């Protein structure tokens, strides 16, 4: 579903991604872990077509980036820690707007379905401004999956959520990923990642330095795996 080869991204003189390679198969739920500044957000911005690679090839859902950005965009849902919603529109209006941009068929019934799915039925007409942080994040999932994307990118989706809201988000995420979607998620919350993801990749200094499946890990073994991965010298490319 996602094929990235020798990806290099520079910002001015700084090189953020230095020859990153990763392959994600359909239906996998990849947890992308790594310290701050490792390039996780930059990598997701490239996958979501918001930033262009300097070198290397990027293929998402069978299309090349940046050449086939429109095709990729129509198959991609993105959820970040910012909800990407308009506070002065109601929940329903927000989804109507994005539904039109994505050219979603039968928009009205699809929106009702989404509100049901994320547990916000009954709040459609309220302004997003009046939603709690957790509700906004759930509506954001609705926005990200409105057009039934094949690939879902989640950038630190738990930032700023309290315990209850996080658990609700967990439930919704499990629901929307059960349908065989490919997911890449960055997170600092290892416990939550271990619970959700089927595979873990560690991004450090602009490269994937280690990868493992959940089956290959002992119970609560993720922290040890992560520590070992980021303490490797910079030259190492693949571990585990």
């Amino acid at each position: 579903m996602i094929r990235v080869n020798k990806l290099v991204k520079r910002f001015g003189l700084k090189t953020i991604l230095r020859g990153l390679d990763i392959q994600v198969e359909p239906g996998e739920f990849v947890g992308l872990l790594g310290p701050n500044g490792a390039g996780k957000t930059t990598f997701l911005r490239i996958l979501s077509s918001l930033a262009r690679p300097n070198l290397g090839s990027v293929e998402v859902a069978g299309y090349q980036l940046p050449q086939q950005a429109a095709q990729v965009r129509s198959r991609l849902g993105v959820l970040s820690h910012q909800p990407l919603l308009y506070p002065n529109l109601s929940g329903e209006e927000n989804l109507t707007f994005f539904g039109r941009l994505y050219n979603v068929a039968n928009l009205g019934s699809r929106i009702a379905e989404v509100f049901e799915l994320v547990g916000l039925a009954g709040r459609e007409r309220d302004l997003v401004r009046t939603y709690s942080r957790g509700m906004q994040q759930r509506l954001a999932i609705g926005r990200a999956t409105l057009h039934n994307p094949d690939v879902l990118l989640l950038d630190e989706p738990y930032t700023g959520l309290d315990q209850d809201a996080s658990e609700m988000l967990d439930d919704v995420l499990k629901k929307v990923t059960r349908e065989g979607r490919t997911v890449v998620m960055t997170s600092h919350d290892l416990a939550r990642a271990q619970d959700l993801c089927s595979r873990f990749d560690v991004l450090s200094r602009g490269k994937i330095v280690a990868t493992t499946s959940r089956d290959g890990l002992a119970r609560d073994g993720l922290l040890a795996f992560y520590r070992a991965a980021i303490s490797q010298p910079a030259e190492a490319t693949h571990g585990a």
Partner: protein
Amino acid sequence: MGLKAISRDGQPVQTSFLRSMWAVVWKDTTAEFRSRELLSAMLVFSLLVVLIFNFALELNARERQEVTAGVIWVTIAFAGTLGLNRSMAVEKDGNCLDGLLLAPVDRAAIYFGKVISNLLFMLIVMVIILPIYSILYNQNLFVPGLLGTIVLGIIGYVVSGTLLASMSVQTRTRDVLLPILHLPVALPVVIAAVRASAYFLQGQPMDLIWPSINLLIGYNVIFTAAAYMLFDFVVQE
């Protein structure tokens, strides 16, 4: 994009230009008519400018006739800056701009959507301000030529302003920067529009007015084309 890209399930991949552009206009107007944040700010500010000019210039009835065109265009330029800033700030707060860019729509459709909404808001403000000005200063402003000039000038002002505002909101100095970037670039619009407006109010013959009108049209064409080509670069990292 020449050929329409077709996806595997036969659906057009990129949402059509007009459809996405009107979606942006619908979104902006729906949000604005509910909150009226932008319109009320522009309106009150415009009224204040008109009032301040009255005292700053200590106008008597005859002098007022002569500076009307200038006062109107200063009002438009300053209130416009306020509106353009706010309209792009809405997209930048909470990173909604990213949300727009993630959708399979032509970048230019987003730009033109924003232009049309900004244009609508400025015209609404003028529709309210001009009659008030007419009443306050007992001057008839319902000269068709003047109204046409105002529309032409506002188009030019918004076309360049929306492009520059989409850059200025992404800088550290945000609100302060837009007028500094925009006013020197919008100067031809202001100069030509003041000239044409004043001539229309004085009832001068058309061959005196045409050069200004042509300049406004030229500016609008050149900057629409330039913005169409350059907006992609504003939003692409």
